[in-house]
């Protein structure tokens, strides 16, 4: 079954459903290179499924981030990253372990 799986179409459906579930206004589409994008008021996030030398992973790239694309081995991590990038409130809930500022 997995060989015939239409990842492009299924990814769009998953991300569209996720936006509704998260109550985030946004639009799922494709960019010029055919990669899936999630466009929200805050940012545009590119989500790609990368197959590289027998290894497969997800890459999440928020347009407002200076960091390199974030790789995730599974849908679970990919969804969490998209949600954090799309939802300012969700990012605020993230647990930060490490030195804290003085404020």
């Amino acid at each position, binding site marked *: *079954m*997995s060989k015939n799986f239409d990842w492009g179409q299924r990814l769009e459906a*998953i991300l*569209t*459903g996720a936006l*509704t579930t*998260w109550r985030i206004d946004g639009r799922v589409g494709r960019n010029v290179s055919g990669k899936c994008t999630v466009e929200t008021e805050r940012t545009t996030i590119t989500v790609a499924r990368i197959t590289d030398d*027998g290894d*497969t992973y997800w890459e999440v790239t928020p347009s407002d981030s200076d960091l390199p694309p974030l790789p995730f081995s599974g849908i679970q991590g990919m*969804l969490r990253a998209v949600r954090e990038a799309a939802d300012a409130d969700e990012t605020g809930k993230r647990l930060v372990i490490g030195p804290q500022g003085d404020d």
Partner: protein
Amino acid sequence: MVTVSILTGFLGSGKTTLLSRLLRHADMAKTAVIINEFGTVGLDHILVEASDENIIELNNGCLCCTIRGDLVLTLLDLLGQRDRGEVMAFERIVIETTGLADPVPILQALMTDTALAGDIEVDGVVTTVDAVTGAATLDRHPEAVKQAAIADRIVLTKTDMPEAEDLRARLSAVSPVACLLTAIKGDIAPNRLFDNGVFDPSAKPANVQAWLDAERHTHDHAHDVNRHGDGITAHAMVLETPIHAIALTLFLEILAEHCGADLLRMKGLVKLVESTDRPAVVHGVQNVFHPPVWLECWPGEDRNSKLVFITKDLPGQWFEDLLLAINAEVAEAHERQN
């Protein structure tokens, strides 16, 4: 005279577990059961481990909204079959409502339908309340408050999990005349719940009497059998493809993380790649998911996975898209390893 009891309680509060345990008890031998489920795919009749012959499934809508007439017809048919000796001579009927049911119109139909008068007497209302999610459910869902308020017996379930003591106080305030009981994994003697005398509306608090009075003036209206108002919808998924166990685990983790309290109830019978002959029963209530339970075998010829999601404003198709994608991802990983 056949006594009729109503077993109600919010989604996932333990009605089916309670009923399943009760039906193993010798005192329940002469009991017929009517199970009403919300949505088009029913599972509770499978999950109640008892003989099929005295269990009737009503899953073409919720009793409180659309199929009150069906209930009366079902009861009349059942009583006729009993009188003709076509089914065992039951002395009691237990009606398990949907988790979203308002028990008031059901009670009203049972107490006032002239065709049933003389054949049945309404014994009372047993309401299950989940000790874990009960307080939040009472806050969010007026149906749950009504279910508790009208109860003669409230059974606090899942008390083997950490229990909020203030829930007991709140239930006593909502239903001051109800007897408050507890049941761990549905374990309670039938005589503590049933055959406690005819249901007496005059002994109920004023708000319950007002609801019953108001119900006399309601109207019938057409409904989508999968919708219950306030954005609450049942989504059913039937899958031929077996699911990898790890994919099911990941799927449930994602639901718990992303759906929160908007996933009111999830239940299912799942065919796993690792165990195609023994289906897994999965249950979830809001973001609490229980470990799968394995059935000895499939309950019938149909060996497809069936999952039902009752949600508040969540996209139903998303569950299927997500589960199939996770399953494909896991299958690909297996293929790469082999």
